């Protein structure tokens, strides 16, 4: 085991891809000379050269679409969209094109394209730079959505993504880049569509992903002090979705809370909650709770920004109040 931060785990994954597959190249804004807006690709340009580390103009639609086009004819590009907010400029290429080509051509074409992007708020970047859209992409058939929460998962999931032949949104939470974790030294992969039980427990299941896993774990600690044993599930991928692990856990605990950073209306937590009650209604000992950010644009000022992001106390209070624990 080696301890590393998530940023380094992603960088390691990217280097592996570049080292082992000459069909792979990186493309995005300021990934080369600048070293990456989040410093993930620092030093890459020197090591791999301009041809494989391609700085692009600020034109998300064309460089994301070009990634898809190159993937259509045999390359395995990895594009970086600086933040998921900017991915909306390229959403036509992602949703209308990359996600559709396999189906519309009935399997003649495939698009092995990894779209790395940075998601989440909490950095006082205000309304246009603090959003999470993984849930939008997860609703599109033909896309895969990967949302790692630990360095180990980031590396293991990325390795699997490299072998997948579909367009993938690989969303890294900006506040997780400095999170430390143990990463195995030997080679390993983590399959897509297999959730992780981040912490076992008996009384309540807390489902989360990406930046909210840490918050859920913190809530579980606090609940433990109250004598309530919480099981924390990290979905790891939203598409494919591992519902089985969630349902198995709920069968054991009979209570479920889904915690998600983005807005409640249209949130992916709604999909999880409805799935739970559809397949495990008779196991429930209370309503399936959804803890999401409120339906407001992210503000700049720190105190009100923090107020919109689900916290451990928020989870603890919801659990004890709603389940009578």
């Amino acid at each position, binding site marked *: 085991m080696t301890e590393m931060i998530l940023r380094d785990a992603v960088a390691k994954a990217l280097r592996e891809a570049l080292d082992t597959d000459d069909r792979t190249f990186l493309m995005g804004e300021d990934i080369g000379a600048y070293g990456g807006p989040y410093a993930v690709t620092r030093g890459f340009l020197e090591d791999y050269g301009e041809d494989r580390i391609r700085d692009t103009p600020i034109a998300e639609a064309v460089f994301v679409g070009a990634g898809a086009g190159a993937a259509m004819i045999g390359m395995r590009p990895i594009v970086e969209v600086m933040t998921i907010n900017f991915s909306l400029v390229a959403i036509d290429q992602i949703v209308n094109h990359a996600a559709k080509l396999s189906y519309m051509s009935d399997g003649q074409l495939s698009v092995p394209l990894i779209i790395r992007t940075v998601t989440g708020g909490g950095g006082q970047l205000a309304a246009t730079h603090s959003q999470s859209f993984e849930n939008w992409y997860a609703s599109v058939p033909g896309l895969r959505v990967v949302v790692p929460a630990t360095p180990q998962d980031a590396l293991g999931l990325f390795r699997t993504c490299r072998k997948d032949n579909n367009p993938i949104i690989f969303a890294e939470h900006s506040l997780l880049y400095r999170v430390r974790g143990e990463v195995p030294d030997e080679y390993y992969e983590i399959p897509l569509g297999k959730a992780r039980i981040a912490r076992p427990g008996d009384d309540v299941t807390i489902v989360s992903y990406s930046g909210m896993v840490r918050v859920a774990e913190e809530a579980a600690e606090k609940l433990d002090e109250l004598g309530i044993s919480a099981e924390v599930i990290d979905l790891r991928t939203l598409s494919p979705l591992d519902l089985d692990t969630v*349902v198995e856990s709920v*069968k054991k605990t*009979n209570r479920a809370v889904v915690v998600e950073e983005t807005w409640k209306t249209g949130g992916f937590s709604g999909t999880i909650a409805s799935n739970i009650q*559809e*397949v*495990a*209604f*008779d*196991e*429930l*000992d*209370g309503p399936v709770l959804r803890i999401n950010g409120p339906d407001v644009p992210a503000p700049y000022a720190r105190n009100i920004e923090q107020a919109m992001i689900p916290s451990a106390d928020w989870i603890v209070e919801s659990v004890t*109040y*709603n*389940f*009578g624990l």
Partner: protein
Amino acid sequence: MATELKMPQMGYDMEEGTVVRWLKEEGSTVGRNEPVAEIETDKAVVEFESEAEGVLLRIVASEGSIVPVGETIALVGLEGEEADNVPSAGSTESTDSDTAIREELTSESERHEVQEPIRNTTQESSESTPTTRILATPVARRIADELGIDLKQVAGSGPGGRITKKDVETFDPASSTSTKETNFEMSSSETPEQSPEEIPETVSETTDPSVNSMPGEKEPLSRMRQQIARVTVKSKTEKPHFYVSAEIDMTKAMVLRKQVNDQLSDDGVRITVNDLIVKACIESLKKYPKFNAYFQDDGIQFNNTINIAVAIAGEEGLIVPAILDCGSKTLRELSQMVKDLANRSASGTLNNQEYTGGTFAISNLGMFDVTGFLAIIHPPQSAVLAVGTVAEKPVVRDGELAVANIMNATISADHRIVDGVEGAEFIVEVKRLLENPMGLIV
């Protein structure tokens, strides 16, 4: 062969169009792709071109008529060609579009077949419909249903008094303060029997978990044992039992039974003593329907059918399934039904109604050498007949000592519905029928 010009599809959402004007008259020559009519859609008036060249043989849709897409509006063919046998637009004869619609319907229903329905991971619940709204979580309802617990008696500890899983699991019926009669909530798929009774045909070894336990150890109750404990306590707590016994002379019945069985042995029929008792009870219940009723909300609710429940010892424990709607069955039919019930209880293929639908019960311990016993009423019923073994005993008949086949029977009844006199009348009627058994056979 003439070419049919059909109302064109001019856009994916167009369903019909209007023939505004014919640009050609019948009999005039038309070229391929030459406009022949003006068609109005909801978007525009467009020229409609002929797809064939020849002569406009017939105009089927007159100017101003509204024609569904795909229906013929004109015929183009060779000069002098027959233009008959073509339906006018809007006729009821089958057209391509009809066929298309039928095909669509077919694939529609096929499509539903491939769409996966939502499946609950838990078994279908046989929960009864509560008469008043009870706040309980889904899992609490399911477990209460499995354990035969009446949710009305459970205090909810969750938000707003909601009953949770923990409330049901820790529920102690003995300490329940509720006094309200709630018989219907008792119905469940595994309602236990109130006392260990069997009928002769289905004698099997009942396994008592305490047999193998070590002295001094506390053996935890099995699920079945817990249910039996709960139901019997409930019955004895809520139902004021009283008992009336009679000695029944079964001599004639035994003789008759032998005759019948000898005659019908080739048919595989074998009438048992129990069958005769079932038949006698049915006839008695017709005469005294209060024993086929139950107490509910300070009233007596009569059942529409007679469903005689018989205690059967199965591998899982004791159950009391019912022979449903047996009021008008002959002895021979009843015999078959009891046998069938026993077989299916052994194979576990009884249906829910059979498990829970009894309106009167018979407990028969005749295969043991017991003179008689008292049974506990099985809720929501209001009476149960307990019968002991049939034994030869000396009796005085016409002033002389004789040997007779005697059976003791005791009716347990709910005092809220019936009194001692009625109990006596009922058991005497059963006695009369069994002592004059020809009436049961005819």
